[in-house]
């Protein structure tokens, strides 16, 4: 069965939420809630909750980046200090811990920030994965619901959208 994309535009979150709720309760064959995407001008956690759990992995990237930055920073500085040809230290340690903590801390933050941004871009699946349907009226405070479903289910889905006063329905075949 071929998969079809359909996207409906709604005036506000309430109408979009009602349509989404009916879609969820409909148990249509060839349709899964995992294949639904909401497009909105602001974040709406209540509406997103209807879609089910969608984990965010940004924190793992942050943790990795911060730990990597700290370890790499300290290792680079310590190895540079240990590689001085002449170690005229007057009894002081070759690799002093307290002053090295400053640069370690800076690299901890720098790598943490950069990996957080990278993790977010990967979470967005950018730049490769663009959603097939988009309506610029989302920027004008309209709410869009994008559904990917079997072509047989699409008529029923569009009927639900129409029943909940969708402003516009767009479609595209894979």
């Amino acid at each position, binding site marked *: 069965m071929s998969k079809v994309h359909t996207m409906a535009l709604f005036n506000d979150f309430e109408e979009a939420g009602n349509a989404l709720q009916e879609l969820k309760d409909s148990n249509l064959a060839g349709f899964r809630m995992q294949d639904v995407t909401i497009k909105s001008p602001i974040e709406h956690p209540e509406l997103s909750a209807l879609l089910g759990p969608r984990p965010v992995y940004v*924190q793992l990237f942050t943790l990795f980046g911060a730990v990597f930055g700290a370890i790499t920073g300290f290792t680079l500085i310590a190895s540079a200090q240990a590689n001085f040809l002449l170690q005229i230290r007057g009894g002081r340690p070759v690799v002093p811990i307290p002053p090295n903590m400053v640069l370690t*801390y800076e690299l901890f*933050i720098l790598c943490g920030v950069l990996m957080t941004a990278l993790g977010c871009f990967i979470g967005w699946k950018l730049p490769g994965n663009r959603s097939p349907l988009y309506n610029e009226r989302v920027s004008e405070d309209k709410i869009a619901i994008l559904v990917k479903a079997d072509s047989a289910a699409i008529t029923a889905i569009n009927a639900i959208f129409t029943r909940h006063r969708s402003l516009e329905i767009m479609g595209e075949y894979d």
Partner: protein
Amino acid sequence: MWQFYYVVAYPNERWTWPNFNSPLVWDATAIGTYLTSSIVFLYFGMIPDLAICRDTATGFRRKFYWFLSLGWQGTDRQWANFRVAYLTIACFLIPLAVSVHSIVATDFAVSQQPGWHITSFPPYFVAGALYSGCAAIITLFIILRYVFRFEEYMTMPILDKTCRLTFAIAMVWTYLNLIEYASVWYGNDVYAKETLIYRATGLYAPYWWAMNFLGSVVPFMLAFKSMRNNLTIMMVVSLLLNMGMWLERFMIISPTFAHGYYPWTWTSGWWPSWVQWGIVLGSFGWFSMLFMLFCKIFPTVSMYEVKEMVYHRSEARKARNL
């Protein structure tokens, strides 16, 4: 600027590494980290707004915003990732701001020079940075509000809260200043005490007293609501505070140069040359030009945050009416 090469932490052509125990190396790294992280944070927070610009612009501007908005479509997955990432970067930036100003202070504090070798310098620099930042925000707030007619977005309650915050930070700064004076006055370091007396009575006395007056007395105007509600007065006060904070930096540097340990290094007064004044004025010019370009090209008010605020307020109103 062209000597920046010598403080960046990589070996030169003779394979000599910089001294990693020197705060100058820490400073270069901290400023680099701060600059990079701030740019990432600023750009990241603008992505939803850049997508709005993309959807409304035409011609080459559309392509420009299309490129910068990175394909943002406002999907639930994008918003969820964006929220977590934006908050995380903000959490990184707060300790980073403290660390970068502390490290700049360490450049001075770990030296042996009278007037610079002061334990309270790191928190003093952090407070000074926050203080001058808040004063600059008040100035730019009033200018943007007037020029772009942003009365509905840049509201008086926001200005009121900013002024209160500035007053609180001004008092912290004043307290740290007094700690510095008291610890030098009652301490055993005669050179530091001489430098303090020189600041208050010597060639730089007018600037030292002006700094203390502008930085510690003028902010008391922020304590009065009637003053905080008057934009003209706030504009004047914020400019005076900025001037006070500029004098603070000038007073940290110059008296120690002019009145150090050795009498034969004393001068009749170290004063910036026309080249140095040119660099100062040039930096003001660069800042003004880049700020105006930013205002021209990018959204100066976060549109999605305003939309969120309007939405949540209308929802709260609906809930009250039910």
